[in-house]
């Protein structure tokens, strides 16, 4: 599903990702662990090109996202992302946080189609072989209503329906992160990318967020998770990457990863964190 080829990222002279090639298949839950500064977050952010790779390719559903000609926004809609610091839109209510992207994108597509149809009609005035007008399936009001209904459903699922009209500043960290997760889910993504989703939370709130991630994982979502929660990594991952010095130093299924580490670097790391 996601194919990474010779991915390299430099910040100035600093080599953060060093020629990484890897494939993530549909339905996999890849967990990335490793020491700070090892390139975990950068790798994850390169997957949806929030960070522009210096060289290499990220091929998602057969399209190279690093290609400048590709409409990256179209493909990002299929990749949800959850951040360490939640990044909810502070100026919008919780409900609007969730509906913003579906509505904006839906309405934009509608306008595009309408403009296109207008030009087709105009062109048809001068053509003998008439062009076919593409009928418009949904209208802005319907798009808004649909997005709203979906958002209400998602909020109901995480038990925060009563918070729909409040602003993010009134929510606790755990609530914010859960909203951030359903905000990403509202776009119907194929892949979810989690960038240390519990690192900025109180220990007490970590559980509720992990529970939601677990639920989403059990529905068969493809996931790439950067985390420091080793127990969670072991439980949920189908494959675990150990990233250090800009490379995937070791990878294995969780049992083997934790019980039988091969490289010295990973042994040392596991000794420290476990």
């Amino acid at each position, binding site marked *: 599903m996601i194919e990474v080829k010779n991915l390299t990222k430099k910040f100035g002279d600093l080599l953060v990702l060093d020629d990484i090639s890897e494939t993530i298949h549909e339905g996999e839950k890849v967990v990335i662990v490793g020491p700070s500064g090892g390139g975990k977050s950068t790798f994850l952010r390169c997957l949806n090109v929030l960070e522009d790779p210096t060289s290499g390719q990220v091929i998602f559903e057969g399209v190279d996202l690093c290609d400048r000609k590709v409409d990256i926004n179209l493909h990002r809609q299929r990749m*949800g*992302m959850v951040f360490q610091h939640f990044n909810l839109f502070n100026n919008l209510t919780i409900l609007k946080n969730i509906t913003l992207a579906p509505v904006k994108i839906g309405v934009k597509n509608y306008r595009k189609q309408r403009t296109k149809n207008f030009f087709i009609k105009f062109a048809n005035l001068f053509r003998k072989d008439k062009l076919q007008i593409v009928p418009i399936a949904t209208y802005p009001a319907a798009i808004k209503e649909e997005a709203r209904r979906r958002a209400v459903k998602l909020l109901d699922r995480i038990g925060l329906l009563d918070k729909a009209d409040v602003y993010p500043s009134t929510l606790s960290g755990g609530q914010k992160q859960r909203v951030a997760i359903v905000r990403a889910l509202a776009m119907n993504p194929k892949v979810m990318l989690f960038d240390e989703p519990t690192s900025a939370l109180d220990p007490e709130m970590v559980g509720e967020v992990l529970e939601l991630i677990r639920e989403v994982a059990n529905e068969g979502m493809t996931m790439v998770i950067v985390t420091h929660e080793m127990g969670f990594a072991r439980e949920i991952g189908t494959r675990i990457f150990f990233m250090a010095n800009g490379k995937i130093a070791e990878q294995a299924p969780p049992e083997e990863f934790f019980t039988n580490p091969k490289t010295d670097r990973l042994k040392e790391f596991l000794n420290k964190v476990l």
Partner: protein
Amino acid sequence: MEKSLGEKFYDAFIKFDRWELYLKGLKTTLIVALIAIIIGIVIGVVVAMVNYVNKKTGKLKVLNFITKIYVTVIRGTPVVLQMFIMFTVIFITQLGDLKIGSLVWEGGADYLIGGLTFGLNSGAYVAEIIRAGFESVDDGQMEAGRSLGLSMGQTVRAVITPQAIRNVLPPLFNEFIILVKETSVLGYVGVMDLGRVPSIITSITFETMPPLIIVACMYLVLVLILTGILKLLEKYLSKSDRNFKSVNVRGKSFISYLKEKFPVLDKKKRIAQTAGAESSLTDGKTLSGGSDSDIVSADSSYIETKGAVGERTDGTDTPKEENAESGGEEAK
């Protein structure tokens, strides 16, 4: 024979309907300032957006270069000179009086050229203020927008700009206040604005003090009104604050906030009160008086009734609407 202070003020303001002159000046000042503020906001926001996008992505290099020149030139020259250049070089040529605005209405040229002059001037300062505002918004907001598949422009419009505007309201209104007072230099090019009234009155009554005091008070009132608008806007925009509790405006537009604060403004309620029918309050459609805000609220009530949860309102508050509203408020 020395006149008393009261007589002097009477001479300067009331005698022979001289207050009409003040009002005429006030009208000019208001119209010029309003045009200038609108042009200033538009230019400022556009320039700031160009700078921001250029900084984030490296695109729009040519535009960014042009805006830099614009800001440098405008900030580097006195507004009086800019005004003289606009009035005597650009809009009045050797070919004769090429006063474009006069074609529209009498005296319109002065308003338009004046508004354009001060708008262009203000735009440079507003741009710098808003640019600072953009930079004060957390980068994560942009990343979140982009990660959802929104384009750069969509994110800037829906997320970054509203937050930036909120951060920069005080310096922005400071700039508007300066702008309103700055228009008093229009007298130099012979435009009858408020700042020129005292000299005219003085030349009639030979008393300098009263007209100066009167005009000073009028400027003061203008600035106080602006400050009042700033306070209202600040309060409205602080709705996303944790401890905002003055009026319940969650997810509502600025207009509905004003309506709650000043019930007089609420057309629906007024009609309902005069009709004495309480039940008709809920039905927006039958009561819509034809104004835009009524249509909006009728629309949202429609969504409310259709939505899964009856309580939630879908206030259609986009930043565009807010801008329009604040503009309308200033017009009042």
